[in-house]
């Protein structure tokens, strides 16, 4: 049964809402958002190795914007955290539409959700 944030396309769509980037042509490309999703998975591996138990004997999955329907392997409890990482990492880019504090909030939220209960 389909759930929230199942696929690469789900992450891209939800990230665009939080980034206020829902009107074409987009401020942030799909490729950029997916790259940040991949970076988020690496961070998850560093902070919470147990979330990547199934990848210990292999490499961490890497997704591509060319295959938006691919399922992102991430436990349902931490999909929101990963989405926050995508937004935070995206907003680290220096442009007139972003605020550093907003990027920091997203990235801190990501870390806190991985490591604490009440974040």
């Amino acid at each position, binding site marked *: 049964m389909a759930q929230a944030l199942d696929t690469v396309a789900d992450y891209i769509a939800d990230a665009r809402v939080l980034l206020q980037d829902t009107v074409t042509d987009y401020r942030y490309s799909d490729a950029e958002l997916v790259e940040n999703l991949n970076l988020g998975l690496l961070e998850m591996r560093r902070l919470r190795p*147990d*979330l990547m*138990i*199934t990848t210990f004997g292999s490499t961490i999955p890497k997704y591509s914007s060319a295959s938006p329907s691919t399922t992102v392997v991430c*436990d349902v*409890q931490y999909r929101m955290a990963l989405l926050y990482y995508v937004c935070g990492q995206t907003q680290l880019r220096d442009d007139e539409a972003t605020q550093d504090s907003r990027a920091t909030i997203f990235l801190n939220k990501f870390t806190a959700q991985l*490591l604490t*209960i009440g974040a």
Partner: protein
Amino acid sequence: MSVVMDRLMNNLRIRLPGAIDDAIKLEVYNTLNDFFQGSNIWREDLDIAITSGETYYDLLPTGPCNLVRLIGVVNSDNLKVDALIDLITRQLVLALEPTSADTYTAQVVLTVADPLDRDSYPVFPEWVLDLYMNDITDGVLGRMMSQPAKPYSNTQLAAFHTRSFQSAIATARVESNRRYAYGAQRWRFPQAFNRHKVRR
């Protein structure tokens, strides 16, 4: 997954917010391994066809499991036979060469081993969870909560649950040795008797 295993997992999930199933299953395996190795409760009687002059025999318990130790060996007349086991080769080693063909029965202690079942749970007798559900839960909680930097990390509760689990292992070992008979072997030599013997 059996109903009782389902209950164990649900017990653990509600006490470990933020824990993923794969991590819990890993610690369930470790906990069961500790429990079986410490308590001797999982035993199996293995019949072995003995041939004259041969001292090494393969031990083949049912299903995926590891041998832990040998409780004892008896011959077909129910008389004790001196033997030991080689855990590496999984063989029974008789102390003396048998002089005639016979069927011996070796009682061995077992613990969990790979491969796991299709739900990634170790294979073990289900009655163990019926009897020791809360104790196994304590063991898994102790291990999970002692992990660093997790939402469910809690050193105080980890110590509490681990103590409870260690105590449960000791209780289970005694129960197993007494074959679950209430009050069995209640009488024992007074301590003064042993001290007296040592002084001599």
